[in-house]
Structure formats: structure tokens, C-alpha cells
């Protein structure tokens, strides 16, 4: 049994980025302040007059990012998405190029940040944009 992060209603997004900060804090032993380690992004649509949206891993069944990883740092999860083995990542950025929806982010140390579907951010989304649900597959 595994759960996935889903976008429940994108039109409700106010662009506050609380999900980004939550993602950076998610590891209880190693939380970060700031969003360098954040695997989710809140953006405006070329200016806030057109609203805001979230960019995050959609948990592909056949993840292109994993297919182009030369060091097996990205392993497909059973119900979609990938497991990121940070230790093995050489920072080649192939995965960033490969992700069709640009949901993999480059960290300042050269490695990557992406959603691991832990669901920590959902409790910090004040407006019900995000949801954490049982994978159907």
C-alpha cells in the first residue's frame, strides 16, 4: 500500500509557497530553512494577474527521469513516481531535461530535488489545493 500526492484543485492555488517550505522541512532529522531542497514549486502564470499554479511530480508509471538516470539514483516506485537515492546522484541533470512537466529542480549543490510523495506538504496547504491519497494502481 502506498500513497501519492495529488493536486486536488489547482484553481484554488494562491501561490503562497507554503508547500515548498514544508517540503524543505520534511526530514525530521535534517530539516532545511528555505526552498533549495524543495521538490515542489509554486509559480505565477507569467504574473499574478493570471493566477498561480503548482508544479510537482505527477507520479508517472513509466518515469522518463528514471529511464535516463545513468547511476540508478532514481528507481521507479510501485505505484508511480520514483525513489531518489541521493548518494548515487552525480548531478548530471539528465532527469531535469527528461521530465516533461519540469518537476525536477536543481539544487545549489548540483544534486536534485523532487517530490518523493511523502505527503508532508499537504497539511500545510491552507487552501485545499493538495491531497494525499491511496494509489489506485
Amino acid at each position, binding site marked *: 500500500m502506498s500513497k501519492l500526492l495529488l493536486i486536488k484543485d489547482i484553481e484554488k492555488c*494562491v*501561490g*503562497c*509557497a*507554503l508547500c515548498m*517550505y514544508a517540503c*524543505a*522541512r520534511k526530514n*525530521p*532529522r*535534517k*530539516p*532545511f*530553512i*528555505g*526552498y*533549495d*531542497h524543495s521538490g515542489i*514549486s*509554486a*509559480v*505565477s502564470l*507569467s*504574473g*499574478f*494577474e*493570471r*493566477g*498561480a499554479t503548482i*508544479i510537482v511530480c505527477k507520479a508517472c508509471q513509466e518515469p522518463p527521469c528514471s529511464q535516463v538516470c545513468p547511476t540508478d539514483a532514481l528507481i521507479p516506485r510501485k505505484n508511480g513516481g520514483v525513489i531518489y537515492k541521493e548518494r548515487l546522484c552525480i548531478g548530471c541533470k539528465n532527469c531535469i531535461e527528461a521530465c516533461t512537466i519540469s518537476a525536477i529542480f536543481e*539544487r*545549489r549543490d548540483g544534486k536534485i530535488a523532487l517530490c518523493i510523495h511523502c505527503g508532508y506538504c499537504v497539511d*500545510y496547504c*491552507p*487552501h485545499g489545493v493538495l491531497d494525499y491519497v491511496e494509489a489506485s494502481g
Partner: protein
Amino acid sequence: MRILTLDLSEYTYEIDEREDLNDWIGGVGIATQLMKEEIDPKADPLSEGNVIVFAVGPFTPAYPFASKTVALFKSPLTGNLGESHAGGRTATSIANAGYDAIVIKGASNKPIYIVIHNDKVYFKDARVLWGIEDSLIVGRIIAEKEKGRGIRTVMRIGGAGENLVRYACVTTETYRHFGRLGLGAVFGSKKLKALVVVGRGSKRPRNVKGYREIYDKIFQIAVNSDAMQKYHLLGTAVNVNPLNELKGLPTKNLKSAHFEDAEEISGEEFAAHNLGRRIACNHCPTACIHIAALRQPYGNEKYFFKTIMISYDYELIYALGSMLGINSRDGVLKLIHRVESYTLDAISTGVCLAWATEALEKGLISDGECIVSLRFGDVDAYLKAIDFIYLQPNEFYRTLAKGVEKASEVYGGGDFALSFGGNEMAGYHTGHGSHIGYLIGLRHSHLDNAGYSLDQKAELSPEELIERLVKEEQWRQILSSLVVCFFARGVYTPEIVVEAFKPLGIEIDEEELRKKGEMIYLEKLKLKKKLGFDIESLRIPKRVMEVESFRGRLSQKYFDDALKYYKKLFSKALFD
């Protein structure tokens, strides 16, 4: 503290580590010290000698609501210290890029914009952008061209900044502003069209467990208590109806403090008929930014419509609504949109136009000088007049672009020129407290001093009023050093602030904090004096005393006594 200094005269930059600034917390605390070091007090505000300091605080980006940036500069409107705060993504971008403050010196010969990308600074050609008067368009062009989507801020000026209107603002993220006291004109004088900061960074808390715990505590107060309710529901526009009922809503150049059509332009009516979207500053769960959808026909083609998204707040509804006698929401929105496009300060623009309308009624100025016939309630005339403030086609508008104080010195009508120390009044005619607050306010452009809320609580003696205004102002120096949004002042009580410092590795108790607030207050007052602030030159426009307020008629004697007491309390800082 990590400080980035940009020199626009030589297109150079340097990054300094300044441990000696640590005592000053951050935000306005360090900005005051940097300003003291960098500026020649005699510098003309529109010359290359002016200096701009942007500063963020230790709670950014660690905690929610630490979403504000402080800007200090010499104000071209008042001629002394200018301070303005803005939200958006500016603070978090600067902090994530690794800086506590950014100092801008010198002036460019040719139009430029600057991109700061973490440790690198790029000076870029803005000759093509110069002359684009609409800040929304400027923002879109830069957003498309530059990298850093979602982790950047785009601070920019429109036409009013380029044309040096003394109350032009700097806009960030479309709807937030370094609104007051003319930072936009300072950008314009430096030929700086925009400042983009892209920040991607992280740091570790000193105490891992404590950090997540206090974060959760603040978050829970934010979303589950009523501390943010006013801003979470109708937003600041909720003030329109109650202030009107209290006779505190300045109307038609404060000929009255009660607007018969206030209901029509109230927060309730905007929410019911116009509210189209909410957005938030970065790291704020409240999302107080209320955006109205204005649907307008093309006019020349049937069944063609454009829909413009316009941000509204109490101060804008006051300045471009009741103050101008505008009784339609569409009218108010059109005026806000025009002011937003040119990056004009909405409050100053509204107060200037209200004065001009009355000056025209009284025959101090002519229809010819105004070009359009200004009458309270006439939206189309005001739309044209806003164009003229930006374009300055004649001597009258060139003068009006310098503020209502200057305009009334030239054309008369000082008694009803609603300026306090050279800055146009904010929207509260609640009693002596609000007006004294404008005069001695030492933060955020005197806009949101505690005066109007003191007025509503109790009848105070002049001395009590000064003491309570100053005490609140000193505490708010701490809030603006952290830098947290003042709307979250109910969340960030002294206890919470002390607790929130701990996981960041800073031990400080409440008493020390309050002391620092007093120190920063004094440092800023001294700087303000050094830059030209003269308390003896302050005046209260007569109009304020002619119009019934919530506290009844206001008296010159009360104002005199209060100011006398203030001068006594701070005689050393004000007169040495």
C-alpha cells in the same frame, strides 16, 4: 550579516560579511545602520548621491509571515528619510539568495535593469524597456525573458517612476508595492527600470526539533485562531463600513468624514460582486490580497470584452474612492488600475487630486490649468488627470507631481492640503491619535501607525497618547527588523518572537527585545533628523480641525500639547 552592495555608476558589486551588524537584528535595524554609513545627508534625493537599502530579517524565510522587505532611502517627496515596506516574493528571494541586505548606490547613465542570481549580479540593457509606462507589461516581459520562475522577485517602475513623480512607487509581483514616499522616482533617477532577485538557497536550523515545533505552533495560530481573521475574510476593505459609521472615513478631500455612498464601495460589496481571486505573498497562509475582476466591453465592437484583474485594499478605496467622491466600484477599480499601471502611490495620488478638485472649486486654479474639469465623483476626469500627473504636460501638473504640500505652497489652499510632514494623509480621521501618528510616525511611511486604533479605544490625554504611540512604535521597530508583516502582529507576540529565535541559535529575552526596539527607534529618529526632518516645521492642516471625527472636533491645543510633550521626550535626538 551578508550585504550585497551595487554601484550603478561603475557597474560593480561586492559582497561583505558584517558581523558588527548582528546586534541590530535585521530589517530596519540594519538598514538604518547601512544608510547612516552610506548616505551623504545633504544629497539630493534624485541625484546619484541617494542610496537605497533593501533589508530582510532573521525570520525570513524560516517562518510564515516573514514576507516583508524594508526599503530605506532619502525621500524625494519629503526630503528626509523614506521608508517603505513591500511583500510579494521580494523578501524570500533576497533571503534565499543569501543576503540580509542589498545596498544600491550611484546612478547609471543609460537605462538598465539588474538581475541578481544568488552570488552573481548582471547589469542589463533596459533602453528598450524604458518608456514602457505600464508596469504590468514591464513585469511580463522580464518574467518571460529571465530565469527563476517561482523563486524570484521582479521589482520595477512604470512611467511615473521614469518621469520622477515624487510619489511614484516600486511594484513587485504585480500587486505589491514599496508604495509610499517615492522610491519609484529614486529608481527612475538612477535609470533603474527593474531589480530582479533570483534566490535558491537553504540553511540549517541550530535546533532541529525545536524549529519544527515552533514553526507548527506559529502555523496553527495563523490558520486556527482569529489572529488573522480580518485579513483572511474581507481583507482590509472590511474597514470601509465601520470607519464610515464612526465618521472616520475621509470623504471629498475631508470636507466630511462620512461618505453617503460608502456602502456601495465597501469590502462587503466588492466581495459580493467583484472579487475574482485571492493571492498570497510568499510564505503567507492568509492570502489577504484581494483581486477584483473588472469586465469591460471593448466599446467599438459588440460582444468583445476584456477582463482586468485589479487588487484592492482599504487605503485604495479611501484615496481613489471616498476621497474623490467616487460611488461606483467599477469607477474605483478603473482608477486603481490606472495608478497601478504607472506605478503611482495610490494614497498620494488620491489626496493630490482631491486637493486639486477643491482648489478648482475655490478658484485657486483654473480649468485650463487642470486641462480637464475635475469634479468630485467624475471618474473619467480623474482618469485623464492621472495621465497628466504621469505625463506632466504643463506647470500645474509638474507641480502636482511634487506632492500636495508643494502644490499648495505654489497655488494656495494649504488649509485643505492634507499633507503631514510632506506626505499625503492615510485614510483615518478617527481622532487626534491618527493625525499625531502621521506626524511622528517613524516607520512604514506613517501609514499604519497605532493612532487610529487608540482613537477608537479611549479618550487619552496628549501625554498618554504620545507615550502609547511611541511604545507601540518602538515594538513595531522589532517587527520591522524581523521582518514580519504587521498584519501578523497578533501572531508575533513578544513571547512567540523569543521562542522563534531559539532554534535559530539566538537567545534573547523579552526585555532585551524591547530595549533593542527603543534603540532602533532612536537610531532611526536621529538619522531622519540628519537627513532633514524638522519637527518645528510640522503643521496640521486646518481642515482636520473643521470636520467632526469619531472623537468629535479636534483641537489645535491638543495637537500642540502632544507635540510639545513629544519634543520634550526626544529633545536630544530632535534638536542636537
